[in-house]
């Protein structure tokens, strides 16, 4: 099943670095409006990202709120040398990893429930072309493939495709080299190619 929506698929624009630097500078001076625009720009994306770790939407939101609250509390000395975006994703990742250490069991249970508790029938009950696409064989194969990726490779792929980051930015978020990012992407391509080979039209 393919999407019925005849909308053309275009790429989105991300804010230029200079704009983000100005935003950070304003936040350091206590500009609440600048902080709010940073929050608006990244909140939903960070929640998506956090949820890929913690699996629970409520926990993901709480986690992202904590990250923003810490930034505001320490705004005068906030210096995201890697750029605001990379800083935010890295902070959410660290926060999530800390949380998972304590809640590994809970998370595992939630994860199993996620995998087993959602037969395709339920997903299909929600109307709309996106859900039709999400329920397709292609989507299922891709979801399984992503779940099978080693943790780091999964994150590299998510940051690259979901968050549309450059290799250098991904390297900064995960604290690895650009070369490693490229190697991980190459392996992910090979893996996806193999997984899709099973797919019949």
């Amino acid at each position, binding site marked *: 099943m393919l999407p019925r929506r005849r*909308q053309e*698929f275009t790429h*989105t624009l991300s804010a230029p670095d200079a704009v983000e630097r100005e935003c950070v500078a304003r936040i350091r001076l206590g500009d609440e409006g600048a902080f709010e625009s940073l929050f608006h720009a990244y*909140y*939903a994306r960070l929640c998506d990202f956090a949820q890929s770790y913690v699996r629970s939407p409520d926990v993901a939101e709480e986690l992202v709120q904590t990250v*923003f609250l810490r930034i505001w509390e320490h705004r005068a000395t906030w210096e995201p040398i890697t750029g605001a975006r990379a800083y935010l994703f890295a902070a959410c990742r660290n926060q999530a990893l800390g949380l998972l250490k304590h809640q590994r069991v809970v998370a595992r249970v939630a994860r199993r429930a996620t995998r087993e508790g959602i037969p395709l029938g339920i997903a299909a009950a929600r109307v709309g072309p996106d859900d039709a696409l999400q329920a397709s064989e292609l989507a299922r194969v891709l979801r399984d493939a992503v779940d099978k990726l080693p943790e780091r490779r999964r994150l590299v792929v998510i940051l690259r495709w979901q968050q549309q980051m450059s290799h250098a930015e991904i390297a900064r978020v995960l604290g690895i080299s650009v070369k490693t990012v490229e190697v991980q992407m190459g392996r992910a391509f090979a893996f996806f*190619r193999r997984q899709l080979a099973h797919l019949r*039209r």
Partner: protein
Amino acid sequence: MDWNSIDWERLDRFVAGRGAPDEMAALGAWVNSDPELRALASLLRAVGEPSGADRREWDVRSAWQRLHRRMGAPPLQLGPLAAHPGASPLRRALSAAAVLVLVALASLWFVARWRGDTIPPRDFATRRSQTAVLELPDGSRVMLGPASSLRFRDRGVLGVGSSRDVYLEGEAYLEVKHDAIRPFRVHTAAGFVEDVGTEFLVSAYPEVPGMRVVVATGMVALYGTPPSIARRPLLTLAHGDVADLAVSGVATVTHDVNLAPYLAWTHGDLAFDGARLGDVIPALERWYDIEIRLSDSLLAERRVTATFRRESLSQVLELLALSLDVHVQREGRTVLLTSSAGSRP
């Protein structure tokens, strides 16, 4: 499509949106040429996102309010929605509009209330046969079409708020002073447009559901109104693009359009290029403050190609009669068009 033959390096560059504009355009054409490839690209962009029951549409505004409370600032004052004074065009539209439009407007109202605190909104409205040019406090210029209204709050446009929001019913041509920190947004019942440094036209008359965006220079991002699709832009539009957003949230775009007919009214002209008479009539009614009736609904399907340059109403009607082969009867401000005898049925 053979899934084995996919060029993953190219697909990756497209999905990640990394590439020069020329390359992105080529990649976009490649991806859009094959529905299965497009499906794959859109799934890759959602990779790692929860699906089914775990999927949530993040409510960013209430999340901000929660955070704001924890930031130690005084809580925001939230007044009742209905307590707003003044009978604005938006309010009048509210009472008349269909349920769907009403829901969309209500959320829009909520945003306006929540953002502006106690500062009353400013309304500008044109009557039929009027246009108006407004200078906004931030230096942006708006040319308001006939029978249109624009509402904004000084606070938002002056720059204390984090974005500059204006609310449009009808049609407007905007020259926006770009400020990436404070995006400029034009809201309508169907969605909103955010500028990326630009001149563009937005059309959202109540009798035509949805909205239309025409980009003259620069770029804009088009968003739908229901929160489910307001999270990411539906489309990013550039010079020469005309996008139509239906109330259903489906957007279609046409590239490299001749913009002259769309923008003609900003120069005092009215231009139509093969438009349905049924679509031309509301524009004529607004422009000349008249009512036009058709003796036969099939007449609405006839095509009009014409440019009117400050012609008087009677001249315009004469031109229409000749080009459409119709008979024109005028009584005061009411005009009746009938098929000429012996013409096609």
